[in-house]
């Protein structure tokens, strides 16, 4: 049973990690469709929990060819930029967002759009919780539009990426969501 965000934030960091709901490849392969009719305002999405290490940060820097030293050169970060430690990339956080929305809408929905801000400096050792809550829903053009509040909180409850998203879920007896995606017309 999924643990509510508020309850997670009452736990010790090690205990939070035990409630990670990031799906495995096999779970994504066999993911059952969530339909528009299945969700209600106030529903919480699964929580993706991360505990980035310097090695995770280095791997991300290398993967996207981001050479900013604050992410892998601790001496530079501490003594030049006066940061508290190496810093978790904003680019990594914002790349988790479409993954999170994709996973929830698979296999037939669509992770249409998101907006968010980067706040707070995240460092290795932080426990990070990617979360989402349904804030609204409407049917439009044969599609189920679902509005979400999203974010990535630290173990201390600090919101590092407040944002919102709109995803599309199929109606239980509706047509398939078009691919490539075409937004419903007003």
């Amino acid at each position, binding site marked *: 049973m999924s643990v509510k965000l508020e309850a997670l934030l009452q736990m010790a960091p090690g205990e939070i990690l035990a409630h990670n709901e990031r799906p495995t490849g096999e779970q*994504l392969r066999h993911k059952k469709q969530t339909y528009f009719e299945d969700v209600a305002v106030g529903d919480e999405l699964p929580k993706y929990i991360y505990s980035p290490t310097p090695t995770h940060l280095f791997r*991300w820097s290398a993967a996207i060819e981001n*050479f900013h030293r604050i992410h892998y050169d601790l001496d530079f970060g501490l003594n030049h930029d006066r940061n508290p430690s190496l810093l978790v990339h904003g680019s990594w956080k914002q790349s988790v967002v479409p993954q999170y929305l994709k996973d929830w809408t698979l*296999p037939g929905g669509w992770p249409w759009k998101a907006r968010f801000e980067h706040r707070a400096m995240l460092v290795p050792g932080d426990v990070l919780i990617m979360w989402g809550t349904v804030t609204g829903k409407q049917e439009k053009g044969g599609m189920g539009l679902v509005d979400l509040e999203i974010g990535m909180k630290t173990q201390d409850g600090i919101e590092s990426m407040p944002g919102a998203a709109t995803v599309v879920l199929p109606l239980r007896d509706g047509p398939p969501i078009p691919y490539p995606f075409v937004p419903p017309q007003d």
Partner: protein
Amino acid sequence: MTQEAQHDTQSALTPEVRAMIGVAGEVVESWGYVDEEYLRRFTQAVMDPDPRYWDKDFAEGTRFGGVIAPPIMVSYMVSRHRPDQEDPITRAFQENPESDGIGSVERPGALPPVPTDLVRVLNAGNELEIYQYPNIGDKIYFQNRYSDIRERSGRDGRAFLIITVETSYKNQNDALLCITRQSSIRR
């Protein structure tokens, strides 16, 4: 909280600044193409094990018809350094031994600067719209554009700007893959 800039403050949204709205950079072809190795490294680094990204047989049976890539992945292809150009990192450290690793590195497709005396830059937020997944073998073309410049005033009454740069990403068939927008505050 901010509010609409008051008429009694000196406006930062001058005619020259306003004229930048809609100004677009050149369409730039990213170096390389969407390939399996970049896809593997990216999805492992973001920690997404989705078999749609690596299992050809499974992916061909999905509605996408083949292996796909995260749209946001191609947004990082635009900052690749071309091998036919001078190594910008070596140059950055020759010019400044204390380089932060990105400060002096030039990026292709950059927009002309907004003509303002406001020099302090703060990140004001990001947006992402997704329309189609890239496929293996896709070439990626991108274009930057000043999509919006607004003026606001802070608590001290001074005007500042919120500048939004929109970047669109298309494939070799001119199909729109995704749009990113980054807004920055200029104080």
